[in-house]
């Protein structure tokens, strides 16, 4: 039984690791008002570069650390130069989406190079423990603390006494004014990305050594923890990020001590949501600090949507409806069924992220709520599957809207962070609420789709069912958007202050959008559950949320037809070209990057 002192030491050590990630995020946010979602990927790269150094090159520890820092810094510089600098004059959220794309690409490259299997990363330090009061401490703990403290000190010296450090501080307080003093903001950005990446990479190395194991799932977790720590400390506030990290480390460590390991992440995200709702500028923000206004701005690139005549849409629907009657392969139908399911999710997201401008990064949680509701109702209460799916949609609508409502007052990037956190919380609750959700075991033996007592088992019937549901939802949404309600949604997206001044209640309209969007996503999740017959807490994950976001950007944000076209394109094309599964995520990442850079209005244009 470990003592409280042990938990405290552990919390501080883990907090130190988070700090290395969070400080970089804070620096970058300070200078470019950007939450760098690729930070975790650099951390991942750091861990694997460390593995190469330790296991294959047999470098001594100091050389390993320097090697990792240098390579990671190079990766950071490349990201800044080629991924982000070209986006300087685009809409605010474009760089954020680009970092998401970059993180997909980097993670997949690491996975393809080193395989997804975990690897052991030896710590290179003697495994001894020293007694310290009631607890123990090892050389690796001391190393992590040492790296953390010396990084913080050198960063302090850099920012306070070097010319470039002054430029970083000036640019983070007023970018235009700094330029008018002769500061080259591109160089500042470069410096900041280099430093952030070096710290992030070393952090990955240290974590790998601490847990003795590295795998590709580390990336997203690191980004999430770093973002939590940074936001808790106040976005862009470097000392705040350190304190936020230590606080996060301690909260997690004590949380684990009381409730158990599977609750670890839950505390991080709850802490994030509480801070976002109560003190969106962080715990230490002074009243004078800039409000989150500059972060506003959705990803709506001005464009003229492509008008598709009604008859063409009708012909397309008819063609897809008769498709199963033609000699098509089972595989093709399967692919299209997946596209229709993704299409429903995309309809939901294009309404929420496009029409009303709340870029959600946690949309898969709505799938999960619908899926679990429908699965459990049909399995334990023997509710007919058709009704259960509708109940799943309603549950998603209700629960999703309630969960997201605290973040209605947030804007811009903070909406994305909050939805990401809420998505993670849903998945963690599913994992831990064993009495209802069966926890990590998942739910198996979910009854197949059925309608009015007839089982839909043949691929054709499943195809027709999912296609019909998707078309119905799309028609409903198109109807909704052409009404007064649709105009109100867009007014809120384009200028929420003006919309409020005209008497629109933001909360009510945002709720309506999430209710409708939640229903569509929940129905999609419900159908998926009966189709898969087995689901667990990882079935609907962040990767799917991001995939849905890529789909709706591809189709054109807010564009109903675009959402469906995007889904068919992203699910269908890799199938047609027979691209191996492990390359798909890589391709999605590249597609997202290319879209953000070259065609932010998507294929069919934003509405």
């Amino acid at each position, binding site marked *: 039984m470990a003592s409280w002192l042990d938990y405290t030491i552990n919390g501080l050590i883990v907090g130190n690791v988070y700090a290395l990630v969070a400080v970089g995020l804070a620096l970058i946010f300070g200078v470019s008002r950007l939450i760098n979602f690729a930070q975790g990927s650099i951390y991942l790269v750091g861990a694997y570069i460390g593995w190469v150094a330790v296991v294959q090159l047999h470098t001594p520890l100091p050389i390993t650390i320097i090697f990792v820092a240098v390579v990671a810094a190079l990766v950071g510089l490349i990201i800044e130069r080629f991924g982000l600098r070209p986006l300087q004059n685009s809409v605010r959220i474009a760089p954020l989406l680009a970092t998401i794309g970059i993180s997909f690409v980097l993670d997949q490259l690491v996975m393809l190079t080193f395989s997804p299997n975990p690897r052991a990363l030896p710590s290179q330090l003697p495994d001894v423990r020293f007694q310290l009061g009631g607890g123990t401490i090892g050389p690796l703990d001391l190393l992590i603390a040492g790296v953390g403290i010396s990084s913080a000190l050198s960063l302090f010296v850099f920012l306070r006494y070097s010319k470039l450090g002054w430029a970083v501080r000036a640019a983070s307080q007023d970018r235009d004014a700094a330029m*008018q003093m002769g500061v080259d903001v591109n160089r500042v950005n470069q410096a900041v990305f280099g430093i952030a990446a070096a710290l992030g990479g070393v952090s990955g190395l240290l974590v790998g050594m601490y847990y003795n194991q590295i795998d590709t799932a580390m990336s997203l977790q690191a980004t999430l923890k770093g973002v939590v720590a940074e936001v808790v400390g106040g976005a862009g506030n470097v000392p705040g990020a350190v304190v936020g990290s230590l606080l996060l480390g301690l909260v997690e460590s004590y949380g684990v001590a009381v409730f158990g390991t599977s609750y670890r992440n839950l505390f991080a995200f709850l802490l994030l949501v509480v801070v976002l709702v109560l003190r969106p500028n962080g715990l230490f923000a002074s009243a004078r600090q800039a409000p989150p206004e500059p972060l506003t701005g959705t990803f709506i690139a001005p464009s003229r949507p492509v008008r598709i005549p009604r008859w063409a849409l009708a012909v397309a629907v008819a063609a897809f409806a008769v498709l199963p009657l033609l000699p098509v392969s089972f595989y093709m139908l399967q692919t299209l069924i997946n596209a229709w399911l993704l299409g429903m999710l995309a309809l939901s997201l294009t309404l929420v992220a496009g029409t009303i401008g709340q870029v959600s990064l946690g949309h898969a949680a709505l799938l999960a709520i619908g899926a679990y509701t429908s699965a459990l109702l049909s399995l334990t209460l023997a509710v007919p599957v058709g009704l259960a799916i509708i109940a799943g949609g309603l549950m998603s609508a209700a629960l999703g809207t309630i969960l997201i409502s605290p973040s209605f007052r947030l804007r811009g990037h903070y909406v994305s962070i909050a939805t990401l956190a809420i998505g993670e919380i849903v998945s963690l609750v599913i994992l831990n609420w064993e009495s209802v959700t069966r926890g990590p075991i998942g739910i198996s033996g979910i009854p197949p789709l059925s309608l009015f007592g007839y089982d839909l088992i043949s691929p054709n019937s499943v195809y027709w069912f999912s296609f019909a549901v998707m078309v119905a939802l799309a028609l409903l949404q198109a109807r909704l958007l052409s009404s007064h309600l649709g105009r109100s949604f867009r007014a809120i997206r384009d200028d929420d202050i003006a919309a409020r001044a005209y008497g629109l209640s933001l909360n009510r309209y945002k709720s309506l959008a999430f209710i409708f969007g939640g229903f569509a996503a929940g129905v999609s999740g419900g159908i998926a559950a009966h189709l898969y017959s087995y689901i667990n807490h990882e079935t609907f994950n962040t990767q799917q949320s991001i995939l849905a976001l890529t789909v709706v950007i591809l189709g054109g944000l807010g564009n109903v037809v675009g959402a469906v076209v995007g889904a068919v394109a992203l699910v269908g094309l890799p199938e047609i070209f027979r691209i191996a599964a492990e390359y798909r995520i890589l391709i999605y990442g590249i597609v997202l990057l290319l879209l953000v850079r070259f065609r932010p209005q998507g294929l069919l244009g934003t509405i």
Partner: protein
Amino acid sequence: MTMSSPEPLLALTNVNTFYGQAQVHFGLSITVGRGHIVCLLGGNASGKSTTMKIILGLVKPRSGEVTFDGASLIGLTTPQIVRRGIASVPEARRLFADMSVRENILMGAFVRSDREAIAQDLDKMLTLFPKLGQRLSQRAGSLSGGEQQMVAMARALMSRPRMIVMDEPTMGLSPLYVDRVLELIRTINQEGVSVFMVEQNASLALEIAHEAYVLQTGKIVLSGSARTLKDDPRVRDAYLGGSEAA
């Protein structure tokens, strides 16, 4: 009163600027003679601040020429333009709020690397702006508007510019500070720094300027020596509280 010298220090020639579809400047031409104070007058949304941004390279004109000391500024980045010898006092001061007053002033010398001369110039600023002496280690954001204006001017002077561009330097200041600022602009100018300032307050600006331009919805509608403009009935009516403006 001296008229503009043969070769002006700064010249904007036939500048056309657009924000998306909307045209902001229509064939704008302005010159600032060496050693002169030139003032650009105009109401809201007349394109005054954009003119400043054009000079500083923060906004690119669609067509036209901007030269400083005979060399084109088109295509240069803001830091490059600053290095050519143009310093700025931006609208609403735009100090680095969380940095100290000393750091703010020294940020003005960012393009220089002659440490000792910079230290001397800092002392010089404290004689020019004696009030800032006690405020050096204070957060710039905690100063009053007038004090912030002093810091912004000291910051601009620290780069040893040949020209300072100022965006509404008297905006939001108490009458006491307005007089002080105008006096300082005159002092700075007498030391050989040319000044280009954008102002809404025509009567104040015309008191210290050599020449002035009146900008209306992106076009220069009047220009000439400050003395003639002060007596011009059109300026009186529009800016100096004439009968029609009331």
